């Protein structure tokens, strides 16, 4: 596929048309036809597509190309090889640099395969002079061979604009027309792989007055659908993000049920929360191992070379354990019990009437949630005020949990919060959570390592590396602890407190102010 200059250059042709359709005006000479089979790759999140790229492999070569609405653009770089999954599996600097951001931690998977053919045709006048060229292309499914699209591009020769216009006119008269969707988009559609935006923060079409149970049910069934969509990726172990997102969805759902009291009967809330907790807990070990293995390079760089041998041994054991754990989780998720459990949960939250009545079910969700947000913030402020450099870790842990609850509430009901101020508050909250998260991670990792070691590990190299790792994590924990205070003081300070009070304390007033014009369009 040659680089395009402009989408408008391409004309989609009626199926089955050949270049000879131009034969009544010019002598048509076909040049050599090139046929190649391209397999397109992208991530679960369509990271490449939405960054304006397509990556295809043909033979033993990968080609990264730009696209506009599925029309092929300029080739950015190529690389020989097969079986690449992550950005760091590629060897050339150019490819790695293009792929790093759009892929992140995501793995590539084949999304569609097509047979592309290109043929240049020369149109000659009565003197035998070439007066115009036409690039004739087709894409067909592979295997199968069903033609998906025929398209062409008129390539004018300098000094022969009139002839090119005549060719374009002739093509238009037999049905050629510009099209917004290009051959790659149509190939993906044909393969039932249309790119769609994937997000862990969807919107729920809520209003301030939506009955609480209806609103919460809509949120939970949406989030559980997202959890469900990640299961195939966990089972096939495409990348670690599937498990990560699956766990976030379970945690968010569980958290939401705990935060909106009396929207569902207490017994049912408790039962569902336990089910969700069990599902998440079954994947704890796998996630812990993922986190360690993802941090491998970072930890190696943090330790002297003399400890690398021992660290490599430790990681080799993590890796082996992960294989076993992944198979176990995969088998469990593949089983009917888990799938049924998730399906039943999702269905039960899709309809408000499937549950017994409860006191807050029909209340408008806005005031209920805003009160909850304000209460949560005040709790964080209270805990925060008692925190000093000598405070026990437990308090920071509690603060972190409260922050997480507040964040989930603000994210779920983001549509109801005035956009500008909501964004600012969430940004400050995210900063605080980031610092608390760093502190918590280094504490948890130390405990994980010690537990792992006490299960009868041996070897002097591994012991040395373990000592080094613990020292490194201790140091990081200490640094993270020092960094918490600065952002905490800002978040519990008077400015932020005043904003929280103004927005969330009097939800009825906010309801009046929460007109669509406050929301980003």
């Amino acid at each position, binding site marked *: 596929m040659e680089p395009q200059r402009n989408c408008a250059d391409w004309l989609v042709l009626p199926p089955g048309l050949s270049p000879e359709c131009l034969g009544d005006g010019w002598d048509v000479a076909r040049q050599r036809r090139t046929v190649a089979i391209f397999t397109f790759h992208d991530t679960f999140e369509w990271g490449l597509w939405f960054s304006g790229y397509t990556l295809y492999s043909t033979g033993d070569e990968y080609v990264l190309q730009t696209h506009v609405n599925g029309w092929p653009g300029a080739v950015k770089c190529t690389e020989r090889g097969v079986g690449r999954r992550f950005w760091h599996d590629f060897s050339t600097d150019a490819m790695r640099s293009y792929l790093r951001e759009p892929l992140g931690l995501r793995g590539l998977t084949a999304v569609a395969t097509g047979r592309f053919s290109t043929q240049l045709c020369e149109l000659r006048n009565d003197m035998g*002079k070439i007066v115009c060229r036409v690039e004739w292309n087709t894409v067909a499914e592979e295997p199968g061979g069903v033609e998906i699209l025929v398209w062409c591009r008129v390539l004018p020769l*300098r*000094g022969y604009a009139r002839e090119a216009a005549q060719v374009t006119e002739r093509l238009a008269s037999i049905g050629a027309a510009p099209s917004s969707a290009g051959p790659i988009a149509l190939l993906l559609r044909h393969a039932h792989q249309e790119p769609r935006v994937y997000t862990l923060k969807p919107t729920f079409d809520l209003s301030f007055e939506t009955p609480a149970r209806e609103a919460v049910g809509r949120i939970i069934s949406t989030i559980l659908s997202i959890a469900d969509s990640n299961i195939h990726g966990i089972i096939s172990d495409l990348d670690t993000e599937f498990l990560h997102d699956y766990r976030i969805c379970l945690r968010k759902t569980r958290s939401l049920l705990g935060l909106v009291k009396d929207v569902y009967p207490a017994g049912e809330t408790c039962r569902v929360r336990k089910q969700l907790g069990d599902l998440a807990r079954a994947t704890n070990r796998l996630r812990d191992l993922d986190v360690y293995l993802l941090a491998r390079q970072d930890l190696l760089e943090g330790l002297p070379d003399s400890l690398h041998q021992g660290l490599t041994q430790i990681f080799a054991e993590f890796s082996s354990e992960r294989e076993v754990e992944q198979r176990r989780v995969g088998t469990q998720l593949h089983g009917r019990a888990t799938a049924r459990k998730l399906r039943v949960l999702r269905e039960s939250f899709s309809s408000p009437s499937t549950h017994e009545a409860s006191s807050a079910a029909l209340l408008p969700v806005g005031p209920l949630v805003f009160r909850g947000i304000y209460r949560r913030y005040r709790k964080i402020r209270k805990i925060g005020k008692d925190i000093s450099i000598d405070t026990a870790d437990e308090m920071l842990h509690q603060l972190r949990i409260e922050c997480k609850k507040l964040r989930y509430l603000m994210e779920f009901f983001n549509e109801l919060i005035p956009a500008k101020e909501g964004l600012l508050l969430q940004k400050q909250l995210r900063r605080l959570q980031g610092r608390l998260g760093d502190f918590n991670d280094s504490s948890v990792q130390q405990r994980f390592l010690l537990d792992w070691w006490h299960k009868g590990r041996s070897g002097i190299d591994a012991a040395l590396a373990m000592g080094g790792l613990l020292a490194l994590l201790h140091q990081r924990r200490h640094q993270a602890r020092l960094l918490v205070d600065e952002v905490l003081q800002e978040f519990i300070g008077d400015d932020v407190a005043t904003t929280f009070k103004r927005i969330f304390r009097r939800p009825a007033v906010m309801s009046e102010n929460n007109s669509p014009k406050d929301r980003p369009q």
Partner: protein
Amino acid sequence: MMIIASYSIKGGVGKTALSVNLSYALSEAGQRTLLIDLDPQGAAEFYFRVSSAEKFRMNDTRTLWGGLLRNVRETDFSGLDIIPSNLAYRHFDIALDSMEKRRKQLRRVLEKFSEDYDTIVLDCPPNITLLSENVFRASDMILVPVIPTILSQRTLEQLDSFFRDEELPVERLRPFFSMVQKRNNMHRDTISELSASFPQFLKTTIPFSADVEKMGLRRMPLLAYSRACDAAQAYRALCNEIIALQETVS
């Protein structure tokens, strides 16, 4: 951008065959090349199956440039364009005569093509006029095909004298032997004599070949249909020698 003229006072020495094949060889070597057919006979454009240029005014450099630009035609060969001739070119001298700095206007106009092309090849008519003088001043290299005969020797000497009399850059004159018949004693003697008196003669010689004459039937450069014949190889060698000289000059 280099400007190369194919010029001789004498007709029938292989100027157009040189322009056409050299342009083709330059484009094949990766140089974006524009061939301008300044000869009202329009032989060069015939070889590329291109129609004559549309008429245009030549009141000043602006209209001359606009007219030339409008008449650029892409040939069938990648990287090679042509501005075909027009019978109106017979008035080129009158047009140039009416302009200021009339001996240098052509260079000013051709410079405007420098973004689009690496080399311009001028196929010139066989005479000495104000247009020729403009070509001499505009060109970085003036290739003069010389059939190794007494008459050609005489015309080369005339051209050399003209350059010296008019204080033109004589070092830009690069004659080469054209239509050479190796078995012809007179050709051999003339080559030997002229090479001694004109050290700027190019090393490559173009042999006489019936293949070259078939260009009229095939209507395309010799190099496009008979790549391996002696004459084709000679044109390619001449092109390489010129590219090497271009690099020295630039």
